[in-house]
């Protein structure tokens, strides 16, 4: 052995492990736009609303804080918020990680359409999700109808209204796609030879998953778990409809305090409490995922294969069953309801979406809400891509604290109550420019909500790019900007498209903030649906369902288009 003497002196830092950071100035320059955006449209409004609550007369009154924090009902709200978020996240991971494998590594007819379909719930307005589950799990559920028909029972036996079970199921339904998309996206690009190697070395399937796939997937799992947790922690529409007394999250309490009790100090203290909780969660998340991830990625198409063994078919079948029961059936009920009119099934609800006459509830033709949504959605997507793209790039090329700080800072709007953001926009954005009456507020609020998704989608892919490819390009004569354009951009092309699709879908379906900032004569679809749901009558409910179905169709079309778009040179691995 020729290197026997030296192997004992082996250095631990090989060049491959070493990340080379760009000059600090470059990373900071990239951050200018994201920082201004976050500062103006997030930090400033949130500061304003908290200030308004804690110091209404320009003087800090800590008594309010003490009153709210010692209130037993506030404590029980906080406890409920926390534990339902933890359980929701755990359940979602448990159900969706196998689903991620089935949808990303197994090939079967209709896979692509199904993948787009499971993403639809995620972008549905929370109000619609709540209504769909109410219809599915309430006394008039098709399940009850079936029970009556099959077992001959006389009274409906299933009624999960105002139960935690309904909330948890709706949360899993809602967030299934987050895990499937994030974890599945990485899974489809993991070199299958790693798993093959483990199997050849004698590891069982389960062992291989636990010791090879799971560690490699951990950045994606941690990222998706963080998102699901923050989502369920700040859950609003779902809990508002499916919950009830003792079943309210902090977000719902903020809404109630703001709109019903008009108790701004209470609302702002709750917002502060939520912000602290979210920041703590982000700090934990930051610690968990500090390690830079860099792994060999392969062509996603090459890792998919049809199920071959009986076990694989069984696994696929079980996952398809979960998808059908949990994810597709609420959607089916939603569509079914859109055809229910006072006189049985009919097309009335849909016809009224097309008629160009002002609706009594909306003050404008329903079709205009559709047009507004699309226009605002596209604008918000562009803003979110620029802001999120710059931030993700800075977090990749920068070193040390910049990386972590950007990573966490952009997650904050995600965990903050959309209601707070929307309300904050209204009370704070009169300075430095008075934007309060501007239609720009809607896409800006939507972009703020969508930006963290852009970052989360781009970061894992950006970080997985082999640093040596950038080095190779630089040595071949490419300037830093050129390296980014020639190496990073083509590789993240697909991730960019996914991010764009997500942003658009989120913007189109955004409700919590939009409901505050949308002007009465410029409603978006979710706002219109909310207004329709607020009125009694089969016709209003049916039209809300029809518009929800249309909204689901638009977002599904966007996501399906993205799935197809990645064919071609852009984003090809």
């Amino acid at each position, binding site marked *: 052995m020729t290197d026997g003497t030296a192997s004992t002196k082996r250095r631990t830092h090989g060049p491959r492990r070493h990340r080379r950071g760009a000059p600090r100035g470059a990373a900071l320059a990239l951050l200018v736009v994201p920082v201004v955006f976050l500062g103006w449209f997030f930090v400033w409004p949130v500061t304003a609303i908290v200030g308004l609550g804690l110091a209404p007369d320009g003087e800090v009154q800590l008594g309010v804080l003490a009153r709210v924090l010692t209130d037993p009902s506030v404590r029980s709200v906080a406890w409920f918020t926390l534990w339902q978020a933890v359980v929701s996240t755990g359940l979602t991971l448990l159900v969706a990680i196998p689903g991620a494998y089935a949808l990303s590594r197994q090939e079967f007819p209709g896979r692509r359409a199904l993948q787009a379909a499971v993403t639809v719930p995620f972008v549905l307005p929370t109000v619609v999700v709540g209504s769909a589950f109410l219809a599915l799990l309430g006394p008039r559920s098709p399940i009850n109808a079936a029970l009556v028909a099959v077992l001959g029972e006389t009274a409906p036996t299933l009624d999960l209204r105002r139960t935690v079970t309904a909330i948890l199921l709706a949360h899993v339904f809602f967030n299934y796609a987050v895990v499937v998309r994030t974890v599945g996206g990485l899974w489809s690009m993991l070199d299958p030879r790693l798993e093959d190697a483990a199997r050849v070395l004698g590891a069982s399937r389960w062992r291989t998953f636990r010791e090879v796939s799971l560690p490699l997937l951990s950045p994606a799992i941690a990222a998706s778990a963080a998102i699901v947790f923050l989502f369920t922690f700040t859950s609003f529409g779902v809990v508002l409809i499916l919950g009830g007394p003792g079943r309210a999250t902090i977000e719902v309490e903020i809404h109630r305090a703001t709109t019903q009790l008009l108790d701004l100090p209470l609302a702002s203290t709750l917002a502060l409490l939520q912000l602290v909780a979210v920041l703590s969660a982000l700090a934990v998340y930051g610690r968990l995922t500090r390690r830079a991830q860099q792994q060999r990625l392969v062509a996603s198409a090459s890792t998919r294969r049809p199920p071959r063994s009986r076990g694989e078919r069984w696994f696929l079948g079980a996952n398809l069953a979960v998808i059908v029961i949990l994810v597709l059936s609420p959607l089916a009920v939603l569509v079914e309801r859109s055809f229910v009119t006072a006189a049985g099934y009919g097309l009335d609800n849909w016809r009224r979406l097309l008629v160009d006459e002002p609706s009594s509830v909306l003050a404008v033709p329903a079709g205009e809400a559709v047009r507004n949504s699309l226009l605002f959605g596209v604008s918000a997507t562009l803003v979110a891509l620029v802001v999120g793209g710059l931030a993700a790039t800075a977090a990749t090329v920068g070193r040390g604290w910049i990386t972590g700080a950007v990573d966490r800072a952009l997650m904050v709007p995600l965990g903050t109550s959309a209601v707070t953001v929307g309300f904050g926009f209204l009370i704070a954005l009169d300075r430095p420019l008075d934007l309060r009456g501007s239609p720009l507020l809607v896409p800006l609020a939507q972009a703020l909500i969508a930006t963290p998704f852009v970052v989360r989608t781009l970061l894992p892919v950006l970080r997985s790019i082999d640093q040596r490819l950038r080095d*190779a*390009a630089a040595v071949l004569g490419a300037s830093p900007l050129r390296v980014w354009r020639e190496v990073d951009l083509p590789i993240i092309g697909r991730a960019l498209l996914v991010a764009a699709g997500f942003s658009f879908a989120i913007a189109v379906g955004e409700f919590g903030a939009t409901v505050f900032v949308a002007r009465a004569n410029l409603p978006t679809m979710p706002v219109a649906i909310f207004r329709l749901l607020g009125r009694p009558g089969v016709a209003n409910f049916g039209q809300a369902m029809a518009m929800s179905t249309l909204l689901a169709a638009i977002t599904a079309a966007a996501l399906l288009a993205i799935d197809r778009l990645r064919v071609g040179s852009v984003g090809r691995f």
Partner: protein
Amino acid sequence: MLAIEHLTLAYGDTVVVEDLALSAADGEVLCVLGPSGCGKSTLLRAVAGLEPPVAGTIHLDGRDLAGLRPDQRDVGLMFQEHALFPHRTVAENVAFGPRVHGLDRPAIRQRVTEALSLVGLSGTEFRHVDELSGGERQRVALARAIAPRPRLLMLDEPLGSLDRALQTRLLEDLPRVFSQLGTTVVYVTHDQDEALSLADRIAVMRAGRIEQQDTPAELWRAPRTAFVAGFLGLGPVVDVQADADTVTTPWGRVPRGAVSDAGAATGTVAAVLLPEALRLAPGHRPPGEDELAVAATVATRRFQGDHLRVGVDTDTGQRLYVAAWRGQLPGVGDEVTLAIEVAGIHLLADDARG
């Protein structure tokens, strides 16, 4: 020409390369030979501008490279494990350098054609790099590195991931490629066969320093330290007593003037038997006057194709290896006589960092 002086490189607090000096003349093929982890890849990365030096200077054709980005240095680097762009075809990979250097389309196409034909891959332009075999990837990586016509071409363990047969074939191709390019080449490897067959000059590197720089022949004839001798596969290294006039070896006492000497001190010093110094001495060719006779027993035999490598245990307790050719093949257990050429006993310089 490349001139490196007082170069120190570190990852955080870990010093990887320390006060290193190295130079390569125009058109010269310089091999940096050393065990894994000795800092040789880091050295290349520093020359390429991918690692900032802690101290020292790097000049290329008289120009100080300090402060220049990798893309401003006009050097080529063929990476360990290739680092081919997975999202591009063969031609797109090779065209990358000429393209970012702003060449026009016909010129780029010409460079690609030239580079691919030089590495024997004409006709693979439109294949995707995922579809290539290991040897083909290797050649694409080489073609990509030479296509911008760098003033300095650096190769980092280019044959490391290939099987033996491919290594042998590429080893035969590389000298032709290098001479056609006429560029200065720095070639990093841990394999002494690669270094010996490619290099005009070899720099043996150890733990961040250059242990010896010489032509392959000179290195082989007079390794300076036990580390160099061991890394070249020479051996065994034995302790001998050296004073001003005589050297006492385990096999006998010889005049100091008669042995080879890398600058050893007096007292107990390390010595190595150079490869040609040892032969079997059958009855018809007994040890001569300039040789020491040593009685030994054959312990192992290893067939090496054109010869037999015979391990013998001497009465003085060393295991020595000697080549035997057809007509003089002893069996295991045979008593044999060895002849050790006195001039082939090579005293090594003090190996302080052993």
